[in-house]
C-alpha cells in the first residue's frame, strides 16, 4: 500500500479540528465580507454534488443498477426523507435491480 492509513486519519482529524478550533479561539468579531460568506455558504453543496456524480455510476456491480439507485435516491431526497431512509431506499433499489438482472440472465 502506497499510503499509510493512520497518516490519512491524522490529516483528516487535524484539518477538521483546526477548522473548528481556530475561529473559536481567535475570533473576536463577526465575518462581514459578503463574497467570502457566500462562497463558504455554497461550497459544501458544490462539493457534495461533485462527489456524488459521476462517482455513483461506478459504485455498484453494474452501471444500470447504479442509475436506478441514483434515480430512487433523487426522488426520496426530493421528498425530504431522512438521510438513513434515502440511503436505504437507494440500496434496496440497487439490490432488487441486481437480483432481477441475475434472474433474467
Amino acid at each position, binding site marked *: 500500500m502506497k499510503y499509510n492509513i493512520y497518516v490519512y486519519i491524522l490529516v483528516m482529524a487535524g484539518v477538521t479540528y483546526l477548522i473548528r478550533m481556530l475561529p473559536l479561539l481567535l475570533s473576536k468579531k463577526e465575518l462581514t465580507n459578503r463574497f467570502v460568506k457566500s462562497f463558504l455558504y*455554497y461550497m459544501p453543496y458544490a462539493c457534495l454534488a461533485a*462527489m456524488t456524480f*459521476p462517482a455513483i455510476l461506478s459504485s455498484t456491480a453494474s452501471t444500470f443498477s447504479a442509475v436506478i439507485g441514483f434515480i430512487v435516491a433523487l426522488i426520496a431526497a426530493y421528498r425530504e426523507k431522512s438521510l*438513513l431512509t*434515502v440511503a436505504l431506499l*437507494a440500496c434496496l433499489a440497487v439490490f432488487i435491480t441486481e437480483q432481477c438482472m441475475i434472474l433474467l440472465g
Partner: protein
Amino acid sequence: MNTESFKKGLKDGIPVALGYFAVSFTFGIASILGGLTTWQAVLISITNVTSAGQFAGLSIIAAGGSYLEMALTQLIINLRYSLMSFSLAQKLEPQVSWYHRCLMSYGVTDEIFGLSAAKEGKISPFYNYGCMCIAIPGWVMGTLIGAISGNILPDIVLSALNVAIYGMFLAIIIPPAKKNLTILAVVASAMIISGLFRITPLLSKISSGFVIIIVTLLVSCVAALLRPIEDEK
C-alpha cells in the same frame, strides 16, 4: 463547573445521539467496504465527528488519493464548521478561557451547533459538553456496530450498500436545492462539470479528488459572484 447547563445539554443531546447512531452505522459499513478494519473506522469517528467529511475521507482512502487531496477535501467539506465556530464565538462571554474554547471546538457539528445557536443570549461551554457527552458516544457506537455488521453481511447485500454514501449526500443537498434556486444551479452545474471531466479526453486523466476540488472552487466562486447571499440582519 456549571451543573445545570451540563444536565440540560445531556438531555438535549439524546435525540442527536439517536440520529448520529443511524448515520454512523452506515459509515461503519462503508468503512469495511472501503477496506478499513473495525478499529480504524471507530478511530476515524472518534477523531473526526463529522458525517460528510468522514465519508469523503473514506472515498479518498479507498481510491488511494494523496495526503494533499485528503487535506484539501476536508478543508472544503468542513469549512462550514469555521462559520459555526465564528458564530459560536459571538455567543461566549469574552472571559471564557482558551482551554474551554479548544475543548468545545471538538464538538462543533451541525446538530450540536444548531442546539447551542438556538439558545437565547450567551451560552456556557458546559451546555456543549453535555451535548457532546451523549451525542459523540452515539456516533462512535453506531460506527462500531455498523463495522461489525459490515464484516458479517453477505457480499450481495454489501454490493448494494455501496450506493449508501451517495444516497446520503443527495439527502443532504437536494432538500435545500428545492427551496433555493441558486443552490439547485450549484448542485446541477457541479454534477454536469464533474461529469464532463470524466468523459473529456485528457481531463479524464486528472484524479477524481482534484476534479472535485476544482469543480467546487469554480462553481461556488461563480455562485458567490452572481448570487451573493442576503445578510440575515
